């Protein structure tokens, strides 16, 4: 298989917000394509009769009743925060947007 280009690797690294040097990109291009080659072997198997699944345990409809329980005290919640201002966690300002969510 081996179809990932250097640009693909750089793009995925950007999405993961990883800053990679040229030699790291080159090494990862090789490693990722090697992994994809293993999947190519799996892809040779006949799986037409097997429905796709994202689960390995045969459970369904496990639901929780809508009952609130106490949360963590704020000092515990922020216990591992490298930096805090009042009761907020502080992170460096991120340029260029508001995330992708919502």
């Amino acid at each position, binding site marked *: 298989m081996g179809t990932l280009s250097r640009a693909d690797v750089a793009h995925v690294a950007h999405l993961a917000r990883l800053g990679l040097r040229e030699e790291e990109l080159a090494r990862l291009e090789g490693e990722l394509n090697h992994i994809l080659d293993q999947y190519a072997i799996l892809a040779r198997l006949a799986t037409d009769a097997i429905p796709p699944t994202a689960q390995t345990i045969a459970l369904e409809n496990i639901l929780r009743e809508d009952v609130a329980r106490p949360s963590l005290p704020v000092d515990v919640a*922020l216990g591992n925060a490298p930096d805090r201002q009042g009761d907020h966690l502080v992170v460096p*300002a991120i340029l260029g947007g508001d995330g992708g969510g919502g």
Partner: protein
Amino acid sequence: MSAPAARAAALERYEAVIGIEVHCQVRTASKMFCACAVPPPDAAPNTHTCPVCLALPGTLPTINRAAVEHVLTTGLAIGASVPPATRWDRKNYFYPDLPKGYQISQYDLPLAANGSLTVETSEGPVTIGITRAHLEEDTAKLIHAAAPDGRRVSLVDFNRAGVPLMEIVTEPDVRSAEQARRYAEELRLLLRAIDVSDAEMENGQLRVEANVSLRPRGTGPFGTRVEVKNMNSIRAVERAIDFEIERQAAALDGGEPLRQETRGWDDAAGATYVMRVKESSDDYRYFPEPDLPPLVIDAAWLAALRAALPELPAARRARYRALGLPAYDAAVLVNDEGMRVAFEAILAAGPGLPPKEVANLVTGDYGRALNETAERTASGLAGRADAASLAHVLGEVVAGRLSRANAKEVVAEHVVGGRPAAAVIAERGFAQISDADAVGRIVDAVLAANPAAVADVRAGRSQALGFLVGQAMKASRGQANAAVVQAAVRERLGRGGDG
């Protein structure tokens, strides 16, 4: 050219193609995937978190049943279909508002698909297709600030992280800012009527985004799509879309290419601004969430939710129209829960009352009293009112025994004090004077006391007529039948139906 004229000119050449995305906080006690309480809007930062919604290692999500049911109920209310089985997907992106580095959402198997909502517009009813409604978790809240050393930082509050959020996406069926506004209003009304959300835009329980593009009239392919965010009121939705239509038309006329981007609405400036260039759906690298079991929605579960659905706003408006109410009155009553409750209660207490009279009382004298007090009875009536008393007041008016002016006073006093209306009427000695001779005597006295006004009326200044009628009503302490007073004044001053 004025803004509306420029817009009208743009819309002669271009057709707007608009899709609306609404994020709605469904009302639950606890968060989507953990048991933290959903924080009130004024909660102190980071007081509603736990290992699950902080994404600490080794934690697993569990699904809130009420949140799922709210989305299924919404699906039923918009006539959507529900897949027999659904699942959850991870939407991956890195941003400090997302503790796990992914948001649990639904990608290709939403809880509801292919519904619609019909809205009334100035150009008649428009049906807007709803592609899907799905469930996901909200993000943390970021405040952009400066650290004491001057560094630009973001302050993170995880209270909102993991609050259940329903996303409702329309087809690109919306063609104008007015249609978009009406859709947002009708959807908000529906979400409140089926009791799945308070849907207050001001505190972010309902967030409306619009995808706006233009295409030359008569052509098929869609133009470049711009996503507009940060519209924090229904009015902002309409203004922002109007602005964006004009901006895009001007760019296209000038041969300027449009970029696929996200723009924010600045309400004070009355303009949109670039927020970011949009990532493509592939960049979110959706994949099935392995930590949650699939959901199988069986017929019995859906049937129970369907049976619990209240009358929907559209059906309610149709029923009110069938009772003889004009469209305007029907809409006013259905839009205002306090008035709607009173209308239903008074009709039930006085089944013989003309519905139009009940609507007039509710939107008039009672509506005023409703706005003047925050107090509500157990059945949702204003102050200390009871439906039987309100029905009695109206019955007396309809029977001609109580003047409308006096009815207004009785309603106001009854709502505040809660004393039965009949007792208030008796105590105040309110009895409408409709007898032509009795009214005539009052009018004669008023005319004799106001020769200048009488001369004005005779000289053709008809405003003076209203003054004399008002004086006669006052002289009768509001008890005279206003219509009989009018007739008596006109008869004596020799003026017929004019004025």
